[in-house]
Structure formats: structure tokens, C-alpha cells
């Protein structure tokens, strides 16, 4: 093993610096913007179907609640500590995420949206003081404009920027922003020594376990690992992480916004489903949802796959059945997608089985502007295009589900549980947040209409 990666640190001048903006407890923070009563109390947000914890406030963390825990395991903790539970409101989270990205683009147009709550950016290294002011300004602006607190980390590589953001989040003294590139070698080592290997981006639980078993427990130790030895185990990906820890950038900013190669819509059912009709409605709904995303990307799909999870007697195991068809022509019409999806389902359905989840995947995607035409299809194509446009228009303006295909059903027993979902504050006119115009006694004096009564 080499002692340290010291000699390999790149020259400081002129190198781009990576910045990671990471939202703090994003889903809980979104809920707090519109319901300030949630400020300062323990709050958890539940996944689809209210099954497990996907976000928790710092106050809830103190009770030992971790992301990923199933709700049934901690029901008592939640009850006895009066922890506020909310169903996920992804529509709201997506909207606030979009606002945050928009807000950050003012500071730097080179942005990689890594996930719903993480954004990578690059800044050219100039005077330290300038950059330091800039990232603090960025944090303050996002908080003022959108109301979501963020942590910002900055370093020579993406992996180090991620660790820095983590450090900024944990250490109150940083004020939410941490610039690793401005630290002395001693301070860098101290920071890396406090990070366990499983917390390093790109290492994951599996390699984390293996590394710990070999006595490598911190980021500092991993940085100095024998690279040939580690490459044999973890391959190029693992080696890249080590280089990145040493300050050698291997992962560039991904600005590519090319459309997706695959679109999947799937859900776990609120209740197990056995009935074919009910299953058809679910699959048709997913096909229509996927179609909407397909049109949003301006893509066409050629291949459609339906998959169903079957519940077995063993709670721990699940079995799947899938069916794929190739359509005669690439399409983005809901009616084609629904018809194909339902046909697939009919072929795999077995009446003696219990289904717990299903989904639709569209693949073999191509650009919609390069549509092939079927010489036998006459004006039908045009008519369907118009229909899709009208449906999307109505659903965008009046809320998703305003108009839908009858095949997607009205019974929806299979729909996920989301009993504790907050209003769609920013996307539905009927669900806007309420602003109070003070007390009722004042009201009566000032409102002539009420005096008349």
C-alpha cells in the first residue's frame, strides 16, 4: 500500500471546481414551506403506498428513525413520540425541485441535475473569497426564493464535493457551505478520516462491507489504498472513486439532456389484486401515464413490456411474470399503448394467482419528429395526434385525470394508499395554500357585507 496520494494532487490553478447543492431532508423541507406548523417538530414522509420512510426531519432522526425503515416496524416509536406522518406528495416535490434548479441556473448555467434533490455545478477556480461569497449567496437565495434549506460542498472532484456537502450538513459551524479545496492538507485529512467508507459515493454497501473486513474503514484510508489490489476487486469504477478521493477528477459534469432510453410506470397495489378486470385497469393506467411522459419527451415507443409481481406464500420472495410485444409502428398514442399493454396482460394473467404490483415499460424509443408513416393508415394518424394533444392539454390545465380512457377504470381499488398526502399547493387551483387575513373580530368591523347580515 502506498502511504498517501499526496504527490498526485493536481495543480490548483485553472482547474474547475465541482459544487454539489444537496437539499436537506428534501421531502420534509418541501412540506414545511407551506405548513410552517411542521417546523421544529419530528416529521416523516412515507413512500408510495405508505410503506416505508423516505425522508425524515432532524427531530425524527433523534428517535433513531432512518430512511428506508418500514413503517410497521416503528409504529410504536411514531405514536409515543407524536411524530407527524405524511404520505409522499411527489407532484409538490417535483415542482419545488424544478424551482430550485431554475434558481441555481442564475448563478451558473452548467448544471447537472443528479437527482430530485441534488445538483452538480462547475465553477472556474478564481479568488477563494469570491467563490466563498458566491456559494453562500447561492444557499441564501435558494432558501429565500423556494424555502428549502440546502447544503453546499465544493472540491476538485465530484466525489469530494459530495463528501464536502455531507460535511457541511453535519457540521453546524460550516453554516451549510464547505469548500474542501480551500483547506490545508491537514484539514483535508481530518475531514476524510471522519467519513466511513460506506458513505462514499460509488462505494455502496457491498464494497463497504468488503473494505471494512480488510481494515479499511475511512475515506482517508481508501484514498491511500493499493490501487492494483483494489482494482482487481472493484474494477475501473472502484479505481475511479479512489482517484477522485485523491483529487483527480474522473467524472465530468453530465450536461447531456438527451431523452430517456426507457420509460417505466409501475406501482405496488394498495390491496392485493386477483381480478383480471381490475388488473387491466391498473395496467391501462400505467400505459397512459407512460404515454404522457413519452409525449413530453417527444419520443415514440416501439416495444412495450408489461410486468406483474406475484405474491407467494413466503413473504420474503416474489416472483414475476412479464410479456413484451413489438408494435407494428413506433407510436406515442395512449390508445395504441393501452391496447398493447392489455393484450400482454391477458397472455400472462392466471386467475389462481395474487398480484401485488404491476407496471408498463416502453423501450426501443425514437424521436417523434422522425416518425415513419404507414401508407395504409391514411388520416387516422393525424386524428390520433390531435386527440393526444387535447387530452394532454386538458390534463395539464385541469389536473391529471380530468380526462382519461375508460380502460383505465373508475374503481381503482388497486390504487396506492396515500392517506396522509398534503395538498397540491403549487399545481392545483383548488388546493392553494391559505393566507389568513387576521382575526374574526377585526373581520366583522371591516367587512361591510357581513355587517349587512
Amino acid at each position, binding site marked *: 500500500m502506498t502511504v498517501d496520494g499526496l504527490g498526485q494532487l493536481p495543480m490548483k490553478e485553472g482547474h474547475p471546481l465541482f459544487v454539489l447543492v444537496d437539499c436537506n431532508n428534501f421531502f420534509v423541507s418541501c412540506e414545511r414551506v407551506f405548513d410552517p406548523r411542521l*417546523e421544529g417538530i419530528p416529521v416523516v414522509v412515507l413512500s408510495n403506498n405508505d410503506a416505508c420512510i423516505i425522508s425524515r426531519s432532524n427531530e425524527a432522526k433523534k428517535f433513531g428513525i432512518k430512511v428506508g425503515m418500514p413503517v410497521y416496524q416503528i409504529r410504536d416509536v411514531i405514536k409515543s413520540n407524536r411524530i407527524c406522518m405524511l404520505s409522499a406528495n411527489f407532484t409538490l416535490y417535483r415542482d419545488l425541485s424544478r424551482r430550485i434548479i431554475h434558481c441555481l441556473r442564475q448563478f451558473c448555467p452548467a448544471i447537472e441535475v443528479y437527482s430530485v434533490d441534488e445538483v452538480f455545478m462547475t465553477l472556474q477556480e478564481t479568488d477563494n473569497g469570491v467563490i466563498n461569497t458566491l456559494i453562500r449567496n447561492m444557499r441564501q437565495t435558494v432558501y429565500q426564493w*423556494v424555502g428549502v434549506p440546502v447544503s453546499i460542498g465544493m472540491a476538485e472532484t465530484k466525489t469530494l464535493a459530495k463528501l464536502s456537502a455531507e460535511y457541511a450538513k453535519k457540521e453546524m459551524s460550516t453554516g451549510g457551505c464547505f469548500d474542501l479545496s480551500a483547506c490545508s492538507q491537514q484539514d483535508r485529512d481530518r475531514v476524510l478520516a471522519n467519513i466511513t467508507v460506506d458513505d462514499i459515493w460509488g462505494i455502496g454497501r457491498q464494497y463497504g462491507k468488503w473494505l471494512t473486513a480488510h481494515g479499511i474503514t475511512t475515506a482517508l484510508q481508501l484514498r491511500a489504498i493499493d490501487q492494483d489490489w483494489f482494482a482487481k476487486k472493484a474494477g475501473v469504477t472502484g479505481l475511479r472513486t479512489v482517484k477522485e478521493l485523491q483529487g483527480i477528477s474522473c467524472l465530468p459534469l453530465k450536461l447531456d439532456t438527451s431523452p430517456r432510453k426507457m420509460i417505466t410506470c409501475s406501482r405496488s397495489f394498495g390491496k392485493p389484486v386477483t381480478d383480471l378486470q381490475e388488473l387491466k385497469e391498473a395496467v391501462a393506467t400505467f400505459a397512459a401515464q407512460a404515454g404522457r411522459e413519452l409525449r413530453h419527451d417527444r419520443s415514440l415507443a416501439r416495444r412495450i413490456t408489461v410486468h406483474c409481481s406475484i405474491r407467494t406464500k413466503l413473504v420474503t420472495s416474489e416472483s414475476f411474470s412479464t410479456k413484451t410485444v413489438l408494435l407494428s409502428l413506433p407510436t406515442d398514442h395512449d390508445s395504441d399503448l393501452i391496447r398493447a399493454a392489455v393484450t400482454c396482460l391477458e397472455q400472462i394473467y392466471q386467475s389462481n394467482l395474487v398480484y401485488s404490483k404491476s407496471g408498463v415499460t416502453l423501450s426501443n424509443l425514437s424521436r417523434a419528429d422522425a416518425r415513419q408513416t404507414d401508407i395504409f393508415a391514411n388520416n387516422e394518424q393525424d386524428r390520433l395526434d390531435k386527440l393526444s394533444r*387535447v387530452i394532454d392539454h386538458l390534463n395539464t390545465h385541469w389536473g391529471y385525470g380530468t380526462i382519461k380512457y375508460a380502460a383505465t377504470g373508475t374503481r381503482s381499488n388497486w390504487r396506492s394508499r396515500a392517506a396522509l398526502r398534503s395538498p397540491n399547493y403549487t399545481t392545483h387551483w383548488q388546493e392553494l395554500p*391559505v393566507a*389568513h*387575513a*387576521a382575526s374574526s373580530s377585526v373581520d366583522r368591523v371591516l367587512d361591510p357585507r357581513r355587517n349587512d347580515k
Partner: protein
Amino acid sequence: MAKTNMNLPLGKQSDLSSVISFQAGTEWSSEMHLDLNDHLVTHPSATFFLRVNGNSLYHSAIRDNDILIVDRALTPNLNSTIVAVIDGALVIVPYQSLTRCKQQGGSGNQLDGHLMNAEPAVWGVVTYTIHKI
């Protein structure tokens, strides 16, 4: 923020738009309509719509059930009407009364009849109210 495009009647759209494009070229979509968002919203990512509850600001032309346009990017001045967080609720108040109350000391005091436990915070600045006649 979604564009408020005013589209032509759906059934006739293709026929009409072909006529229009014949007359005016391809720019019709950017020149032939007004977008209220352009007029009412300066900072789209910082602007939120809120529903007014109560009539105590009747004199400031903010009435029950109005839709309030609130811009969080603005810094309030003494003439601003703001939305503040008071005891866990979003409350519309003149910014002046908020600063007055802060000067008198943070906790346990009153703001327009509201008893407060925590220091009030500015949530956003009211820019417009949409009132149905």
C-alpha cells in the same frame, strides 16, 4: 410556470392555424396573444399563489377568497404587504406592523390581535391580488 397560451377552439384548430400561418408566417404564436404570466410574475421560480381567507384587509383591497400572488425573491420595504409566518400559519400583514412588533421584542406580544409565541418571519411579498368582481 406553465404558459397561459390562449388556444383556438380545438375542433377547428388545424384549419384555422393553417390559414393564419399563411397570412402571418410562423411567428403567430409569440405575437398573437398576451401572456398574463409576463405581466404578473417577475420571478417564476420564487412566485406562489395563495388563497385569501378572511376580510380584515378589506381596506387594502385584499378580500376573502382572492388569489394572492406572492414573490419570495423581493425584499420588503415599509410600504409592502407581506405574508408572514405567525404561530405556524401564513398570515397577511403590512410589513410595517411586523417591524413594529419586532422592535417591541420577540415573544409573547401581539400583532393585530394575534398572540404570538415565536418570532414572526417574512414568507414572501404580496405583489398582486386577483379578485373576482
